[in-house]
């Protein structure tokens, strides 16, 4: 049976596509070396529109109104500028309400986009641009360590990784956040209260890597302006040993936390990337694996939720579980030495 893979890899080749949400200008060049904070593409995006019903305001038919309109598509017009004027002794006029760009003219109406803001797309990881995607972005390649998570708040940033979680089930309290941690990305175990998140925002930190997040804090975590990545799940779960070991041994290195919102269809998921100065060609991590003895796996459901182990044997046929259900299963030796039987659908390969 094919197995899902959760990437926690010490050294691999990492290739990431970075795209603008809408069409724009790509600033990066092919084979350019970029750092994580470099802007590689930009665009303008108007969040609002204004519809000026020229025909109704001038009290003429749409056909007549179209002849009276003075602007055309793509015109940038300041606020309070006349864009159409009626006829007669005391002609009415139509003026723009806000500064903006004309996006459509027709049927006696003018549609403008207003409130334009600039979107800058940062590289996100330090590496080499290996492909330009016209008008949208670029593909960047780097070598280093990769730790995927299960939940992210949609933010991205880079900084120095500081380990303040002494153990995988450590709890971060607001009092632990002092000024020496400003601008760092914190490997921080669990957070149990909103005050700690707020203290991290006030400092500010550049990112939090957490083992788990109480459900009551999800909304607050989404509102934070720095990236928050959760490695294991919701509630009070310790960090899996593979992620904790890899992250804690990479403390004091520059890391990128791309706390991307998990999308099971596109494959986007939150991740920590630690670029390392390696010159040799490395393979990219494999995406598909088949369950087999010796593979390192993580259990995604109780009784060994979040625990890492290795497959001792894939059992033939269907196995009756403690719950009474029957399913294909494997014997897994956990890191604590215990051997458990886990249905294959509850396992993911770590690597």
């Amino acid at each position, binding site marked *: *049976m094919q197995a899902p893979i959760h990437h926690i890899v010490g050294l691999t080749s990492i290739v990431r596509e970075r795209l603008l949400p809408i069409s724009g200008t790509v600033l990066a060049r092919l084979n350019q070396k970029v750092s994580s904070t470099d802007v590689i593409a930009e665009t303008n995006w108007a*969040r609002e*529109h204004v519809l000026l019903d020229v025909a109704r305001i001038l009290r003429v038919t749409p056909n007549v109104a179209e002849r009276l309109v003075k602007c055309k598509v793509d015109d940038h017009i300041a606020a309070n500028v006349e864009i159409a004027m009626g006829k007669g002794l005391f002609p009415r006029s139509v003026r723009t309400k806000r500064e903006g760009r004309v996006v459509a003219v027709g049927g006696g109406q003018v549609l403008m986009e207003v409130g334009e803001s600039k979107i800058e797309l940062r590289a996100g990881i330090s590496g080499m641009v290996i492909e330009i995607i016209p008008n949208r972005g670029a593909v960047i390649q780097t070598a280093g360590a990769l730790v995927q998570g299960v939940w992210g708040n949609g933010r991205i940033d880079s900084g120095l990784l500081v380990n303040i979680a002494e153990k995988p089930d450590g709890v971060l309290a607001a009092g632990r956040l002092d000024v020496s941690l400003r601008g760092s990305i914190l490997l921080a175990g669990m957070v149990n209260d909103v005050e700690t998140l707020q203290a991290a925002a006030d400092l500010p930190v550049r990112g939090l890597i957490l083992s788990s997040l109480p459900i009551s804090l999800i909304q607050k975590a989404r509102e934070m302006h720095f990236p928050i990545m959760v490695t294991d799940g919701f509630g009070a779960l310790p960090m899996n040993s593979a992620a904790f070991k890899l992250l804690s041994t990479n403390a004091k290195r520059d890391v990128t936390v791309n706390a991307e919102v998990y999308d099971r*269809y596109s494959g986007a998921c939150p991740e920590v990337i630690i670029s390392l100065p390696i010159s040799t060609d490395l393979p990219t991590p494999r995406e598909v694996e088949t369950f087999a003895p010796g593979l390192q796996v993580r259990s*995604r459901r109780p009784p060994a939720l979040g625990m890492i182990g290795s497959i001792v044997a894939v059992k033939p046929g269907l196995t009756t579980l403690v719950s*009474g259900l029957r399913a294909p299963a494997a014997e897994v030796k956990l890191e604590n030495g215990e051997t458990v039987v886990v249905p294959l659908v509850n396992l993911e390969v770590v690597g």
Partner: protein
Amino acid sequence: MSSSLVDGNSLLAVDVGAANTRAVFFDVVEGEYRFVASGNSPSTAEAPFKDVGEGVRNAISNLQAVLGKPLLDGSRDLITPSQPNGSGVDALVVTLSAGPTIKTVLVGLLKDVSLESARRLTESTYARIVETIALSDYRKPEQQIDSLLRARPDLIVIAGGTDGGASRSIQKLLEPIGLASFLLPEEKRPAVLFAGNEKMESEVKGLVGSLSASLHFSPNVRPSLETEDLEPAQRELARMVINIRKRQIKGVDMLDLWSGGHVLPTAYATGRMVRFLAKVYGASKGILSVDIGASATIISAGFKGKSTLNVYPQFGLGENLSGLLNYTTLEDILRWSSLDISPGILRDYMYQKSLYPSTIAATKEDLVISQSISRQALYLAMQSARRDFPRNIASIKPNLTPLFEPILAGGGALSDASRPGQGLLLLLDSLQPVGVTTVILDQNNLLPLLGAAAAQNNILPVQVLESGAFLSVGTVVAPVVSANYGTPVLRATLTYENGVEGRVDLKYGSLETLPLSSGEAGKLTIQSLRGADVGFGPGHGGTIPVSGGALGVVFDGRGRPLDLPADAVRRRELIKKWNWTLGGE
């Protein structure tokens, strides 16, 4: 590739679900169509595969290992038609429920009329309503445009205007739709279904035709104020959903090609089968089908002359599970639990399961939590679906579940029930059937596949249904009565074919069973006490023929609506007792 299904030809039916893909083989055995074998594999719509074809080929590979004959060639393409050497299959039909929920905008003239019809139409597929625009909308057109742009819909369903009626008002509603579509990148423009005033076709084409991903027309869902006709629009919508999936998920177009265009949304195929059964077997009672799966909970009911189909992604047990708490409370879910589980543990479970929808319960506690959630999801779905049942259908009390015969049940949640009794208790708790009904478990989830096959081969579904491919759990007798716990409410005598009799004294608050094996029949004489009503009228009894099943005849004296004790300890003890009565642990 030929896809015509002629009597005597073998048929491969594939269901691509959110979590699992199943390939099912039907063939003629001793002159009649039979369900021969099935093969399963995890679905591959999601990353890293992003191609449903991989899961389909794997499921077919597993099936051909069971069948002992090849269905795929060396390039892993389907062999059709069947070959003289026995390889291959004559035809393929596919049902599909995998894929993200379809973000849908409803547009209609009147909130309680055309928008209600549009809502019912949209609920017949895997859609989530993200925006609604009506004539009474207080927003300016530009605000509607911005709202549509933020919603980024996959689909817009427009209803409104009786045939030959209002047209200017609909034009006004369509303007922001056209402008918003114009502003979206071409590849992100929504598909549009116009199911309103049929006289407006050319105007609608002019306003949104060139600006939508695809513009479809269906007969008016409200040809007059008093009439609603959803069926033709549901058919069109089903086609559109498959087209949307072709844009979203790789491999759907390959399945469409292999099957000669016979790919249907799973829910639509289920609804078609229920309509078909209501026409063939329909009596005074309705026919009910429920399916509790990862992508949605589906309720389909067939009555004389009308059927309803409701798809509730918000009550699905997969990636949307954490959203269930927008519709219910943790306490309402935990009322179904036989174990003392804290709300916090339940909430963590729901969010964790949303992350890993395909995982299953490995511990007893996990199974209890999972089944409590399934009960509440199905209960909510049934309550919502009842709003759309026609008036004047057979019922004992208007505020209770109408009379159904039979109730067909399938989906992952019922496959998760390790014993038929667990599945039956889940159904009794959440659907709360009344009177006398037969409960049938679709353990192989064949119903939608038969629905997909029905349009091409109307003999196959009937013969497979009558072949024992479904598991009859038994006959359920559920009196409507109000009494104190422990008070006798019904006496029943089951006379077996050999003349032996079995008796039950049913007390209020209890479950009882009388054995009657599958394939056996008997006569059940019911004496109602305390004004209990099983369909003969309050306090009246009668004798009816009954058929057997895995649990025989099950008497549910727990009252309707189901009256669970408020005291948690006593409630949990009762739930355990009910579970034991139906063969659970």
